Every structure is written in structure tokens, then in C-alpha cells.
């Protein structure tokens, strides 16, 4: 579905060039749920913007559904395949009424009005926001606004959805809402790429990329990555609290099974 070959991206500025991505290689299959973690400045967002050709590689290639993103002829087809949801819902919302906002992308594709109506209704229903379709977006909470942004992407019916820290500005309840929405979309067959600073969110993906200094330094299951407690701490990451507690108890001579990740697994092992 997505194939990245020797991707390198350099930002040019007056104070000198900055290599944001280097030596990136991977492929993601249709229907996968991949989380990307990394410190600020590790290149996560730069990578995300390559998936729908908001940025083009300085060298190397990205293929989305077989389409080379750096070939200008492919631009619209790439964007029909990849939807993006960003961190700040306030900077994504463009219309004065919720349903107009969801329809915005579709109108630009030149879809017939009755088709638009149908897709917007379905999309708002999918994010449980049908009751708010006539609302002004500024009357909504951060979590609700982010759901509207997701509805906009659902309405576009892209196969791939890239989320760039969609929960960073939300409170705990808003975060839970968005994550359950993401898991639902994954269950329906969408390919999900999910960038986050919240390790408990990344732990729910099928596969995790760890980024550092513009490179992917690990690509594995969340269990393998987050139970490697000492290495993750050394790299400056948090791990789910149960994994860290299990590691500490092992050092105090507790005989616990390896690779404990969740609170329930730890509790089970201690009982």
C-alpha cells in the first residue's frame, strides 16, 4: 500500500540546510495500523507530510498504491488515497457550519450534490456527530472539533488515513474518543498511520516505528518495543507504566513472565 525507498528530506534555510529525514525504508500493507513515535524534531511530521505529497522527497521515492508521489501527474490520485488529520482542530476547520466543513473536500472533487449529502451524513454518523451537523464549529469542544476533522476525511473515502498527533491538544476524555474512533476505522479496513507522544496510544497499534534524528531506529510490535524498558528509557521515551513496574519488580527478584505490557497482565502475574 505504501512503499518508501531511501527517503531523504532536507529543509533549506538561510542559516544552513537541515537534514530532517535520511535513509528511510519501509513498506506498509493495506489494513495495517502503524504508530510512529519519536521526540520533537525526530522527523515524524516531516515523514507524515510525505504520504500525501504535501512534501516531496529531496531524494528517494514514496509509492502510494503504486503511485510515485513525486510525479506531478499522480498528485490528485495520491491525495484521493491518503487523508490527513492534524494536531490542532482549530486550524483544520474551514466552514461556519459543521456539515459544510465535512463537505468541503468533496465539493472540491466535483462530486454531485446528492452524493455529497449522502457521504456527509454517513461520515457524521460514523463519528457520532450527526446531532451537531447544523452547529457552528466554534461552539464545539476540542474533541468534537477533532471528530469533525475526522468526518471530513471519512467523507473523502480514502484508503489510508494519517493522524499527526490528533490527541495532543485534547483532555483525557477527548483522547479516548479519538482513539476509539481510530480503532473503529482500522477495524473497517482503513490503513492507519498514527503519530503520537502518548505511549499508551502507540501500544494499541499493530506495529510501531521509533524515530530518532530523522531515521527509523526500530520497527517492531508494540510488545517488543515497549517491554524493552531500559532501552526505551535510554532513548528518552516513556513506556506504559505496567511494563516499567514489571521491570522494576523483576530486579527485586520477582519471577514475572517476560514482556508484560498492560496493567491487566501485570495484575494477573502478581496474583
Amino acid at each position, binding site marked *: 500500500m505504501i512503499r518508501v525507498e531511501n527517503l531523504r528530506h532536507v529543509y533549506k534555510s538561510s542559516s544552513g540546510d537541515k537534514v530532517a529525514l535520511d535513509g528511510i525504508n519501509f513498506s506498509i500493507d493495506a489494513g495495517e495500523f502503524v504508530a510512529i513515535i519519536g521526540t520533537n524534531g525526530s522527523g515524524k511530521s516531516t515523514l507524515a507530510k510525505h504520504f500525501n505529497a504535501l512534501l516531496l522527497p529531496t531524494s528517494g521515492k514514496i509509492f502510494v498504491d503504486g503511485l510515485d508521489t513525486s510525479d506531478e501527474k499522480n498528485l490528485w490520485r495520491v491525495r484521493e488515497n491518503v487523508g490527513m488529520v492534524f494536531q490542532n482542530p482549530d486550524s483544520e476547520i474551514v466552514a461556519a457550519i459543521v456539515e459544510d466543513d465535512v463537505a468541503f473536500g468533496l465539493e472540491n472533487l466535483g462530486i454531485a450534490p446528492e452524493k455529497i449529502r449522502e457521504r456527509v451524513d454517513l461520515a457524521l454518523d460514523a463519528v457520532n456527530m450527526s446531532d451537531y451537523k447544523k452547529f457552528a464549529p466554534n461552539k464545539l469542544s476540542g474533541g468534537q472539533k477533532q471528530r469533525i476533522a475526522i468526518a471530513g476525511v471519512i467523507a473523502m473515502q480514502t484508503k489510508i488515513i494519517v493522524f499527526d498527533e490528533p490527541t495532543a491538544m485534547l483532555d483525557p*476524555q477527548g483522547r479516548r474518543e479519538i482513539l476509539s474512533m481510530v480503532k473503529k476505522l482500522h477495524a473497517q479496513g482503513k490503513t492507519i498511520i498514527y503519530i503520537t507522544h502518548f505511549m499508551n496510544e502507540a501500544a494499541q497499534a499493530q506495529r510501531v516505528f521509533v524515530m530518532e534524528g530523522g531515521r527509523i531506529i526500530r520497527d517492531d510490535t508494540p510488545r517488543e518495543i515497549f517491554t524493552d524498558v531500559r532501552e526505551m528509557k535510554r532513548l528518552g521515551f*516513556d513506556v506504559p507504566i505496567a511494563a516499567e513496574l514489571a521491570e522494576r519488580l523483576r530486579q527485586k527478584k520477582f519471577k514475572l513472565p517476560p514482556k508484560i505490557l498492560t496493567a491487566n497482565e501485570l495484575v494477573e502475574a502478581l496474583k
Partner: protein
Amino acid sequence: MISVKDVSYTYMTSTPFEKLALKNISFDVTDGEVLAIAGHTGSGKSTLIQIVAGLIDLQSGSVVIDDLPVADKKIRRLVGIVFQYPEHQLFEETVESDIAFGPKNFGLSDAEISARVEEAMRQVGLPAELKKVSPFELSGGQRRRVAIAGILALKPKYLILDEPTAGLDPLAKENLLKEIFGAIKKSGVTIILVSHNMEDIARFANRVVVLAQGKILFVGTPRELFSQNEILNRAGLEPPAVTQILRKLNITENALTIDEAEKIILKHCPRK
């Protein structure tokens, strides 16, 4: 001391959009403490801190800061407020001039301003060689530090921090919290920390005020709060992850940190 008494606030009074934001809020902030204000989005936290900082006029009740009513312009020099995502408010060409902007408006001498800029940069852990750099060339975490330094340079006696670590990666977040709380507390500043992160509240706050739907649900220590599941649920807050694990093990003791949780488990659970 800050004394908040019977404060209520309604947005868009006498219109169809009338919305009660705060109802009968009373609490004190003692000099030198870190007081957390916790609550869900829409609980009234933002309205409350803006009233305390004198940015929204009182409708009813009173706020007194060191014997001055909040409407007195002098309190602007006593209370500093760092909004969410304060780095969005950076605008000057260099780090130095951005931090100096507030002190300049206070009419301080150039020598005093430059001393304050240097001290504020030290407090937030920004190396002095960044002074002449454009804030827009810094990382997100560093930009946030510049914005906070701009407020510290005003030397407020009371500092309101609204979700100071939102959106930062775990390492940047940890460093910012440690450095800022270390440096600020040493200088004797009283802090009001607005947060929905129970881990941060557990580690840094002496007391916590919980708001829900514009009312105070709880005032007390974080430790007391985390033993009250019903209040946390009503406020839409989650206890720290360590507390949740202890609950599942049927241990009633409360842990605020992973160190405490480890000790409690060592005491209660047999080594197999």
C-alpha cells in the same frame, strides 16, 4: 495570598446563549505553594484563571491578591499567566528581545532588563548563546521555554501555568517540568498549575482544586483526591496509572509515583 470568594460567572447574560461558567467558587492560594486546578474541558478552569489574573472582570464575588482587589491594575505586576501553547505568541526577531518585551513595557532600565532576561533564561534551562537566535529556529520545547521565560522576566509573585506541557514529547515534558518547578520554587514564586494530567499533579502540587461544570468538587492534597474514585469520575479525570494498578490488585494504599507503587507492591505481594 490569593483569596477567591463566592465567585460566579455567566457568559452572554440575558441572551439565549447564556451559559453559567462558574458558580460560588471559593478557595485560597497560600504563598509558596503549588496549587493545581484540575477539571475536564468546559469545567470552568480557563474562566477561573482569567478572573484571577484580572483579564476578565468579576460579575459577583471577590478576588483579593495581597490585600488588593483584582480590579486594581497593580495586580498585573503580581500575577503572571502562561497560556496554553504560549509559543504561538512569540513574535520578536530574537529570543532576547522576545523575553525582554514585557519588562520593557514595565519601564525598567536596560541593565535591569538584560539581567532579568539572563536570569529567566537560566530558570527555564535555555543556554545563553541562544539569546541572539530567532525563536522560530528553535524546537517546540525550546520555543515553549522562551515563552515561559518572557513571563518569568516580569518576576511575578504568583504564576499561573495553563497546561504547560501540552503537546511536548515525553522527554521534553519531563525536562521542562523538572527544571521549571525546580527553579521557580527556589525563587519563592507561588504557582497555580492548570492540568488534567494526574501524574503531573501528583508529583508537583501540594494541593488540588477539582472543578466540574463550574463548581468546586474537591479541595485537598493529591493523595486524598486519588482515594476518592467517585469525585474523579464525576470530574471526568483519571487517577494516575500506578493507582489504577494498585486498585486492580485490591490494595487500598495510594501511590503517587512509580517508586511508591513499587514499595507498596513489595510489601503486599509475595515474591513467587
